[in-house]
């Protein structure tokens, strides 16, 4: 330890914490990244406060957050039980703030003219763990004899967790014989190159590739008509069950006592409606943003999920559950 301290001091001799030079360190989900980047860019231009954003993934972000290395963590899923314990052990409390929606979009090839609408059961039949469906006609006899090629995110992604939870009933329970990639652009290329192709990813990637892909309308359980993913159907809550909230977790003490962090979060919430749209995600509706702002003002730390990911939860209900 002695030698390590020596090495450390060699490199830190000129290091001084200077209030004006402080940076707001943010890390976490790559899905939430574009939104936080947009906010950070504008906030830094306006106030001069330095902000950095990293992309370690939701899990990697929480690890840093619970070690006190970052003050805000981007998350595409709620904090897990393990991460809650980790933060509790380090004495770090957090405020959970939903800031936008992402609509997981099931896409098919442009040449697919049969499966414009699919039910959750049909999706489950295809994607469930151990599924042997290899042809479109195996799912629905009315569909043509066309081999099915499946594309999806890797098992480490929050998108994968949410999709499997919503469609297969259990997070991470999925068939594994599909082409997996962490890069959604690879999935776009895959589905657009195969007539029987099918895959799922965030709405933004579909909107950028509308000319190459079809988005499948989803029939939720107990419903009869399909709903196509769009800003409107996500905001009015009819696109179910694949619309998911995205979060930022703010270090509770620093969030309220460090004026820069406080200013940043307030700027975030005030500008989210405009910036979220600009980076092609779906904003919460105005009453939901109002509820989130109120929640922020009330300084209530904790999570409304208790370590479990839930599908189809209303933002207002979620916030009501968080009691200090």
């Amino acid at each position, binding site marked *: 330890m002695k030698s390590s301290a020596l090495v450390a001091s060699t490199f830190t001799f000129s290091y001084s914490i200077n209030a004006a030079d402080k940076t707001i*360190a943010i890390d976490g989900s790559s899905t939430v990244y574009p939104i936080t980047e947009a906010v950070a860019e504008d906030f830094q231009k306006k106030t001069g406060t330095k902000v950095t954003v990293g992309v370690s993934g939701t899990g990697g972000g929480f690890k840093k957050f619970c070690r006190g290395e970052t003050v805000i963590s981007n998350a595409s899923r709620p904090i897990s039980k393990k991460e809650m314990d980790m933060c509790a052990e380090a004495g770090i409390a957090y405020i959970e703030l939903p800031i936008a929606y992402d609509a997981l979009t099931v896409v098919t090839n442009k040449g697919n003219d049969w499966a414009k609408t699919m039910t959750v059961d049909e999706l489950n039949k295809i994607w469930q763990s151990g599924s042997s469906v290899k042809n479109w006609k195996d799912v629905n006899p009315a569909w043509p004899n066309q081999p099915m090629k499946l594309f999806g995110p890797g098992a480490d992604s929050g998108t994968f967790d949410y999709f499997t939870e919503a469609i297969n009933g259990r997070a991470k329970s999925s068939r594994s014989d599909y082409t997996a990639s962490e890069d959604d652009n690879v999935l776009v290329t895959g589905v657009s190159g195969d007539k029987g192709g099918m895959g799922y990813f965030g709405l*933004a990637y579909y909107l950028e*590739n509308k000319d190459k892909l079809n988005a499948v309308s989803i029939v939720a359980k107990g419903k009869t008509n399909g709903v196509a993913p769009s800003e409107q159907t996500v905001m009015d809550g009819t696109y179910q069950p694949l619309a998911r909230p995205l979060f930022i977790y703010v270090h509770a003490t620093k969030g309220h006592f460090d004026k820069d962090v406080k200013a940043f979060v307030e700027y975030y919430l005030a500008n989210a409606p405009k910036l979220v749209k600009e980076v092609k995600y779906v904003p919460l509706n105005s009453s939901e943003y109002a509820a989130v702002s109120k929640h922020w003002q009330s300084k209530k730390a904790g999570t409304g999920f208790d370590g479990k990911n839930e599908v189809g939860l209303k933002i207002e209900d979620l916030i009501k559950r968080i009691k200090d």
Partner: protein
Amino acid sequence: MEIDKMDSEHSLIKPKTLNEVRAMIRKHKRKDFIFSSIGLLTIIFALLTLLILFVDLVMDGYPKLNYQFFTDFPSRRAAHAGILSAWVGSSLIMLVTFVTAVPMGVAAGVYLEEYAPKNWFTDIVEINVTNLAGVPSIIYGLLALGLFVYTFHLGQTIVTAGLTLGLLMLPIVIVSTREAIRSIPIAIREAAYAVGATKWQVVLHHVIQYSFGGILTGIIIGMARALGETAPIITVGALTFIAFLPPAPITSVAPFISFEWLQSGFTVLPIQMFSWLSRPEHAFHINAAAAGAVIIMLTLVMNGTAIWLRYRIRKNIKW
């Protein structure tokens, strides 16, 4: 001519007529030609692949390859997004890497080649050094995360990244230093000793001088490799959005030199490129292509410099 006669009598090969000899030469020349053609085709194939890749990147990224691209910070608007923080980050990290890996690597190489006794210990060191040159870079990243970030508490900073890449480059420098030293004829050393030079004088005035070209080549090739590394840099915690530069190394107040930049967060060119590539908007893919072209150009310039320097230095050595 007695011997010739005897030879042909004892030989199993019958004496050949002039035409047969000519045919044989032709056959051998044909083999020569076939081999050199295959060699040429392989080189053309390799170069063409690189050229196509490079031209493709330049063509895709052409609209972005302008002065502004180098002076803009990253942004959510593809048109305003640039690589300022990335290339500054890459350069500063390369500086730290150079300052740490080169003296250590050259010294280690000289020691192993000139001073170290030949025993089991140096054998183990040798095997390990050669092995380390082939270890996947992510392993260095994990090592650096445990050692520099968590044990030495250097943080996720430029100094950590520079030291990490320094570790990665060290075996390359050691191995190439040793190769370069080995290529010096033993006669040079013996001549120096003969006129009464000490070992240190031999090393300083002759060995290092003559092997300098080779050592330099190794250093620059190692640096070029380090420049394109992403995995270990991500592991030690590179940022993706950083829209400010590290503190300047030269300040207006005494002592005029500041090392605060070592403590700054950073991003590097390959990470910036990767981040743009994974965005949904096509406009960002153009930025990524432009960043890729910049990386290849930098690597080409570095390798080109290595070849040129080696040529210059070799030309000046007259044995």
